[in-house]
């Protein structure tokens, strides 16, 4: 039993090493979420969308996630809280923040916590795609 538990813990840790190529999108706005998924598809990347940080955490997909794109302000858990939570779980997923009203302090906090990019909405698709590519090729 102990061995099995240790093995599961290990495999989860291993999964956070970005062995999978899944891109996760967390945004509470249907339209933003949907068009982001389509944008990535047109660039050749499959992605999975989540309505909230809680949904993402509850889905169990964080193990397979190689790149996380998340909004900051959302009902319930915010993007920054999600990042902190993942860091606490030792699951450092390269994270791209997209936000409509991010200030410098927020940007600094996000980048210090390991964010790979901090993009104001609306954003340049090339910058986003480059960031995703970089994250997946780590």
């Amino acid at each position, binding site marked *: 039993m102990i061995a099995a538990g240790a093995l599961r813990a290990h495999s989860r840790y291993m999964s956070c090493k970005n062995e999978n190529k899944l891109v996760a999108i967390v945004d509470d706005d249907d339209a933003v979420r949907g068009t982001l998924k389509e*944008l990535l598809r047109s660039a050749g990347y499959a992605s999975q969308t989540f309505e909230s940080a809680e949904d993402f955490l509850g889905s169990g997909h964080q193990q397979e996630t190689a790149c996380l794109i998340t909004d900051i302000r959302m*009902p319930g858990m915010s993007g920054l809280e999600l990042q902190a939570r993942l860091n606490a779980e030792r699951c450092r997923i390269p994270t791209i923040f997209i936000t409509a009203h991010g200030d410098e302090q927020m940007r600094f906090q996000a980048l210090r916590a390991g964010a790979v990019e901090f993009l104001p909405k609306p954003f340049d698709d090339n910058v986003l795609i480059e960031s995703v590519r970089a994250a997946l090729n780590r």
Partner: protein
Amino acid sequence: MNHSETMKEAAGSARSIAQRYTLAVGTVAVAFGLASAFTHFKLPQPFSAFALSAITITFWYAGTAPGVLAAVLSSIVRDYLFEPNTSTQSRLLFDLVFLVFALLMTQVLRHRNQLEVRVAERTAELTQTNDNLKREIAKHNQVEAELRLSQAYLDEAQRLSHTGSWAWSPPPGDIRYWSDECYRVQGFDPKGGQPSFDEFLQTVHPDDQARIVEVIDRAVREKEEFEFDYRIILPGGEVRDARSLGHPILGPTGDLVEYIGTIIDVTDRRQAEKERERLREAQADLAHVSRMTAMGELTASLAHEVNQPITAAVNGASTCVRWLTREEPDLAEAREAALGVIRNAKRAADIINRIRSISKKGESKRQLADVNELIQEMIALLRSEARRYSVAVRTELNAELPKVMADPVQVQQVLMNLIMNGIDAMKNVDQERELTIRTQWADNRMLLISVSDTGVGLPPQQEDRIFDAFFTTKSHGIGMGLRISRSIVESHGGRLWAADNSPHGASFHFTLSTPVEVGA
């Protein structure tokens, strides 16, 4: 007539009969006495003359039967007392004379009686006529008194309502009647007598004269009613607003007989209307300022709300370009992405329009409005604000409710104030933050709209003061939101009130009336 009166009358008539016969005997006796006295002094024998006088007097005063008795007595007295030795022929001759005289007297008496009856009849008729006249005079006096009273009431009513009445024969006639109030309103001296039409026109503001003449001329031509507003310049120079109405009176053949009508001094009413209008404008200005203040507080949230569909549209456009610029362009995918751009751009435009319509300054326009729809729109606008403070917005809207007659922008302003207050009340509470908006039926065909929060609740001991102007518990805000919301709801015929929730939070309720018998 009772028994004793009958007896009295019978006794009176018996006495009168006795008197009448006594008169016969008495006059004959007097005649006999006078004749004897004349004889004694050797004067010619005039008994017959005295006797005839006696018979005449008796007939006249005592009637036929005593008269006949006097004639018989006269014959007897002459035959047996005065001249007992006269011949039979002489006796018969005198008897005949008395008899004939008596007969003549009977005729005279009858004529006299007939005359008396006629006189009595005529007198009775005259008395009757006199009584009738008296009654009529009394009636006339009463009618006149009533008329005077009625006129006094009418005068007072005209004075109170600033409404004079007039009658006017169209040209070439002139003003026939001009009530006291007409003199007052039009600024005429009653001592000057009824004014002519030209004199009336001279008291009218020069700019209004031509129009009045035109309106009246047309009405007279068409034999129709007329109505016009005009200004009066009083002798002191003061300008008053007036309105006159005229109604044509047509003769049996349809010809125009005269106009009767009114002059109303509407200066005070106009003034009050202007003041009400100014007040309405001031209220609308205040409501607008209050809306703009609220929108100012929402700037960040509204910007976010617009930014989301724009972001989605930019994403879609980028996607579209990517599908088109691949080595093998995928037109179907590009088309799909482009459609998404259109959708999201429209959504952004909708939100901007909503913001604009709320920010717009304009006069209040009542129309049939779906309250549930107004609520949904307002929630869409305030979604980002709610999200910003982690407030969950819940709705319990009764979809069966009819539309209300209301100004949509003002109702949304009320909703905005209540929702923002609710969010504000929950900013600093740790428990669950939930805002619930409910619509349902209230009494008397009113709709009840409730906005409930789980915030700090109403300020203790100050529940009533929250609707006062400039009362606020917030560090920002000017304390006008609830005051204006209440005046908006009340101007729609509804009520706005607040209540504490159990175990925490507050609810604001307001009612709106639904139009009767109007299809939703």
